[in-house]
């Protein structure tokens, strides 16, 4: 049973901390419930520019953010390869080219379908 003492303690700790912070926020935080809390950014600042006539949501921000994430994350695989590319040899190079080509396919899709145009 001794084996489980650490995990139980850990579990209790983790839960207590998590519940505690939520409870603490509820107790100490200002209790003003308003629409801003449900806004997309939830930081108290209204998104600018204001949606035209309360109408369309400016989706472009999100689209750009998404595209950024997709292409940004590729660097994760490029980085380790860059460190050891000389030792990985020709196989590593071919794999990397294939990988970049695959990413390019996604790029081509976005480009052709107008994802890169701001308007």
């Amino acid at each position, binding site marked *: 049973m001794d084996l489980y003492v650490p995990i139980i303690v850990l579990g209790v700790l983790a839960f207590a*901390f998590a519940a505690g912070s939520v409870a603490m926020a509820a107790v100490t935080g200002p209790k003003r419930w308003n629409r801003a809390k449900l806004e997309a950014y*939830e930081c108290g600042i209204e998104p600018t520019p204001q949606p035209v006539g309360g109408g369309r949501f400016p*989706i472009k921000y999100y689209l750009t953010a998404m595209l950024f994430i997709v292409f940004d*994350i590729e660097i994760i695989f490029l980085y380790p390869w860059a460190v050891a590319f000389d030792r990985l040899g020709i196989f590593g190079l071919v794999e990397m080219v294939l990988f970049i080509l695959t990413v390019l396919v996604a790029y081509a899709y976005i480009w052709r379908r107008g994802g890169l145009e701001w308007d």
Partner: protein
Amino acid sequence: MSPGHYLALSAILFTIGALGVLVRRNAIVVFMCIELMLNATNLAFVSFSRMHGNLDGQIIAFFVMVVAAAEVVVGLAIIMTIFRTRRSSSVDDVNLLKY
């Protein structure tokens, strides 16, 4: 600090994330909590990697980051679509399908 501390931190972060999923209503915040859970896992992987002295855990962390990014994109797309339709990003408002 020993790797054990990092593990404890990872467990705490994971629990915060899970609890956040349970208590927050804004779909995007819920989603951020899930990302927090994934990153807590990454911390665990890296700590274990350190403990075992092999690199597997760090490599896995790379993969997890990529998957998390892909998940973000898909998630944002879905949440945006429904936000545009319903003008609300509260997960409590999507309850037409029930019982």
